[in-house]
């Protein structure tokens, strides 16, 4: 309102004639046209950026994937990169290994992280005192730089002097070698990812608080117990939020990189060689840009396939209130 008052207010409804800037043609344009030109000018940085940094780069990446390229030379090799990539021979390609490792990480970390996050949100939503304090503590790991977190966990997982194996020893378990063990390195990364479940919790908490109280009241009047209310009110009302978190978690955890790079460098015996780590090694350690581009495009296709699949499935299990559902479809 204050802003409106600041604006010049001409007596009549018409805009006052302004002093000419010498932009006669500009002023001759209709207001709609002017608005449109300004709009294009405003979005042009994004359009230019999109054309160069996204569209152009993706096309270039596709072209590169049919070549053998380092910083100096470029040679067309047709489908060779893809043939090599999909080969089952581990001495030639670690694609399947890295895909398996990443798939393992994605499929197991997401349920753990989402269930933990959801549980915490439900607990926090129980009218608890000190809600803000708990919420901040749980969310804290999510704001931290992944490299510092990785180094901290490297120390926590230390085979002999790490706090994790110490805690296990208190209950009489001899802890594994974690990051040095082919069997335990991947679970170690999973455990670390659950530490960051507070990120999901915060989104879930927002979703829970947006559910109208009347729905619970109505359900109670209809005789629904707390369990029934949870499954018939909370879960359906939360399904759009669950869907959003699922999609972003899938895309995000496919791209796991820093923890594997810092903590294990992909080892032992490639058991934590994640897809993006493999891609990084090929491109920026071995400078095999062509082959790495092929890997990048396959990665893109995999993620897109997952995203499309999730969006397809959403019509079955995600409940949108009237007009939002219409807009989405």
């Amino acid at each position: 309102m204050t802003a409106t008052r600041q604006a010049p207010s001409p007596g009549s409804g018409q805009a006052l004639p302004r002093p000419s800037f010498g932009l006669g043609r500009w002023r001759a344009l209709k207001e709609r046209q002017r608005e449109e030109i300004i709009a294009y000018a405003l979005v042009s940085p994004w359009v230019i950026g999109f054309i160069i940094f996204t569209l152009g780069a993706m096309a270039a990446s596709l072209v590169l994937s049919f070549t053998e390229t380092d910083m100096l030379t470029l040679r067309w090799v047709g489908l060779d990169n893809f043939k090599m990539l999909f080969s089952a021979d581990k001495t030639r390609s670690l694609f399947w290994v890295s895909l398996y490792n990443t798939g393992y990480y994605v499929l197991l970390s997401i349920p753990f992280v989402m269930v933990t996050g959801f549980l915490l949100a439900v607990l926090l939503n129980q009218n608890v005192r000190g809600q803000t304090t708990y919420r901040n503590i749980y969310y804290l790991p999510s704001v931290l730089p992944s490299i510092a977190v990785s180094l901290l966990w490297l120390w926590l997982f230390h085979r002999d002097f790490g706090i994790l194996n110490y805690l296990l020893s208190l209950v009489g378990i001899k802890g594994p070698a974690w990051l040095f063990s082919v069997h335990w390195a991947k679970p170690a990364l999973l455990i670390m990812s659950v530490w960051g479940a507070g990120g999901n919790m915060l989104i879930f908490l927002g979703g829970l608080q947006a559910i109208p109280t009347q729905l619970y009241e109505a359900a109670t009047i209809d005789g629904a117990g707390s369990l029934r209310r949870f499954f018939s009110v909370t879960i359906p009302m939360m399904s759009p939020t669950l869907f959003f978190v699922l999609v972003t978690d899938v895309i995000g955890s496919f791209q796991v990189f820093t923890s594997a790079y810092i903590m294990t460098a992909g080892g032992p015996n490639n058991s934590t060689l994640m897809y993006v780590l493999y891609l990084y090694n090929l491109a920026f350690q071995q400078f095999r840009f062509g082959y790495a581009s092929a890997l990048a495009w396959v990665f893109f296709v995999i993620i897109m396939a997952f995203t499309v699949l999730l969006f397809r499935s959403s019509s079955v299990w995600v409940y949108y209130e009237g007009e939002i559902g219409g807009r989405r479809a």
Partner: protein
Amino acid sequence: MSIASRRRHTGSIRTTSLLQHALVYLLLTVGAIIVLIPFAWMVSTSLKPANQIKQFPPIWIPKPILWSNWVNALVIFPIPFSRFVLNSFYYATFSTLGTLASSALIAFAFARLRFRGSRVLFLIVLSTMMLPGQVTMIPLFLLFSKLRWVNTYNPLIVPSFFGSAYFIFLIRQFFATVPLELDDAARIDGCGVMQLFFRIMLPLAKPALGITAIFSFSGAWNDFMGPLIYLSEMKQFPLAMALMFLRGTYRVLWSELMVVSFITMLPPMVLFFIAQKFYIQGIVVSGVKG
């Protein structure tokens, strides 16, 4: 729809018995302790004399508490430690400025101006949010090396001036909540399009700009892969890369590593605690309404 009107006590109608209530607190507290243990362990390690670091069972409170570790950790690098801090601030500050300036203007156009193709363009903006950055990583590296931008901060900062899909979306969502009547009133009063943006929309979207500033600042501060790809000279390293250097030393120096890790964590932590309202709002807007 507004987040401000969120209800706090959704669960209050539940007649929770005392026992149930106690269980809730118990679970929450145990969880909180589990989350906090690593931090305690980090601080403890950072203050330990060398002989107490590798000890079993571990010592929680070092004897004596060696504050000198903190000084030693900073002079362990071949160049002054302040350089890393300044580099991190440089990167975070300028990419935040770029993101703010570009994303706010772009978001305004999408929220308020009528132009042909706006719907399609906005859909493209949204879809790029889901694009994994790894697809464009290699061509961009080749492009930036052609421009001789490797070993500078340009590849990390310049793209932020072209707008970021996530923040365009976030700010647009805020602009969309501003009543259209304000626009009409302003236009009748003779406000031009840009005046509308600067005088009316921008002041009303302060929370969105705050969220954008905080998120993009900590995003750049926490970024590791970008600097890893583009920066190879130590005098250009941000803190994240200084940490990697320390990790790469022949013998892992745990207390020094914990000191520098802690210092690197500090700015995003402080930012979170002083601006938690923005954080929560930003996460909820993108998550619940997204």
